[in-house]
Every structure is written in structure tokens, then in C-alpha cells.
């Protein structure tokens, strides 16, 4: 009983959130802001998974299990990505991905 919310509402919101995240990843000048965009995209994915779990297969654990694994993946991604950025910052004093074009220090 979702009281009149059709499935595609959730799908559209999740698609919009995904595209906002995509814009952030493509357009931002700061690597940490790019990682924020990635987090938005992962959230959009999770909304999708849970929406499909709720509407299509509430009796199966698949949607829930994948959503739970996405939490872990998001955490691992954030931890390593941000650690990389901090390391890059300490070596080059900048987190502008445009300037990170040399393989050597």
C-alpha cells in the first residue's frame, strides 16, 4: 500500500539524482566535490534498488542485500578516494584534477 505513489516516481527521482551527481562528477573542479557527486550517484542507485525491492519483489531479500552491500561499497569508496586526495594534496598542494596530469612528482 503505497497510497498512490507509482513506481516510476521513485525511478524518476532516482534518475534525476543520478544525473545531478553525474554533472557534479563531470563539471567540478575540486576532486573532493567530484567524490561528493559519486556519493549522490550511489544514493540514486540505492533508491532504485529499494524501490524495485518494494514494488517488484518484497518477498525476496535480493534488493535489500544489494542495498546493504552498496552501503559498504560507498564507505570503502569514500575512505580510499578521500585518502588518495589527501595524499595528492600533500604532494602537490592542490586537489584540482586538471593539474594532476603528470605521473611523476
Amino acid at each position: 500500500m503505497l497510497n498512490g505513489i507509482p513506481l516510476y516516481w521513485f525511478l524518476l527521482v532516482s534518475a534525476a539524482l543520478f544525473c545531478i551527481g553525474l554533472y557534479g562528477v563531470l563539471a567540478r573542479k575540486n576532486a573532493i566535490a567530484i567524490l561528493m557527486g559519486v556519493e549522490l550517484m550511489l544514493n540514486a542507485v540505492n533508491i532504485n534498488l529499494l524501490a524495485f525491492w518494494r514494488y517488484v519483489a518484497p518477498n525476496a531479500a535480493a534488493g535489500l542485500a544489494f542495498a546493504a552491500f552498496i552501503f559498504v561499497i560507498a564507505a570503502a569508496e569514500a575512505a580510499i578516494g578521500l585518502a588518495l586526495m589527501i595524499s595528492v594534496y600533500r604532494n602537490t598542494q592542490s586537489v584540482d584534477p586538471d593539474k594532476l596530469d603528470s605521473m611523476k612528482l
Partner: protein
Amino acid sequence: MTISQVLFIVISLVVLGGGVMVVTARNLFHAALFLIVSFFGVTGLYVLLDAGFFAAAQFLVYIGAISILIIFAVMLTRGVQLAQPANSQWPAALVVSVIVFAIMALMLGPVAVTIGQRQFGSVSWPNVVEGQPAPAVPDDHLVRLGQSFVDFNQYGAAFLLTAVLILVAMVGAIWVARDRALKDVMEERAELAAEEAQEAMLAGPVQQPLPLAETRSAEAPAASVAHH
């Protein structure tokens, strides 16, 4: 309009508005706060989807943990106030994002559109009947989730791999973020090598000549540091 629909629209506006502010804010700390607003909205969406456990987990993991990590990283890199929020290709990025959204909206939306021979939109998902309520959520869905985590016919292997992922992330992140910068390490190594070479020269007139590779490794980083 039912109350659920009103709530959905309000929450969606919070989620999307927060998201837009995240990708446009000039101040990175504010961007991180808007990210939290967006996460909080997603919590509301999970509640509307009857996934209470995931709403609380979203709160705990994203708002209580990942956003803290992001704010710490913002503070550590000193890039809080950006001179310009976007890079030079932002119009192209905007166009790409809008096109991707248009395609997704076309495919997922309720309106059937025929382009050429193919029909897009108005997809019929299994178990989803227009105008009918969604099937009920079983009360023991969390128990089923827990069972699936330890059942190797379901997600037992994935569950254990998750732990391995956590281990790998821990090792990698600590290795990358460790206290000394790579530059300092290489500088130190170069100094040590140079000292050794000097000692070797002083120690005796005829010893083995240093291999070429080692001399180079002793010189090159020092040179690049000087260049910086």
C-alpha cells in the same frame, strides 16, 4: 492527492534541491552540508518505501559517518572556498547530464513514446499493476535478509567478500593516507643514498663502482624536488 504523495513530493524536492546545491556551491563545506540534507531526504524516501532499517542505516552510515569523512577531508586539503565552482567544460557536462536524464526519463516514464520501430516508456514491471497497491512487505523481511547473508546459495559469499573489501579498504586507505608525504620519503631515500655514496667514496679508493641504476635513483628525485 494522498498524504503519501505530498510527502513524496516534498522529500524529493529536498533530495534534488540538496543535490543541486552540492554540485553548484562555491564553499565546499556548504556543499558537504547540502550533501547531508540530500542524504536526509533519501532517508525519508526509504521510510516511504517501508525500508525502516535502511533509513536508519542511511542515517548512521551516510550522515553519521561518510559525511564526517568528507568534511574532514575538506578541512585537511584547505580547498574550502573555491575560486570557481566548475571547470571549463561545465556546459558540456550540463548537456550530457540533461541528455542522460532525458533518455532515462523517456525509458522509465509513464508515457509510451514510439521512435522509429521501437516503443519506449510505460514499461510494465513484473508484479506492478497500474492503480493497484504494491504487494505487502513481509514482517520478517529483516530476518530473511539476515538469513540470506549466511546462506551460500544466496549472498553468503558476497557477505564475506564485503568483509574482505573492508579489510582491503582499510589497508589501502591507511597506506595512502599515512603521515609522511611520498615526496618526503623519496627525499629521505635520496639523502640516504647520497650519504652512502659519499661514505663509500671516502672509505676506500678502489671499491666496486656504484651501479648506474643506483646512482640515478639517488640523483633523480633530488633533482625533481629542486625543480619544484
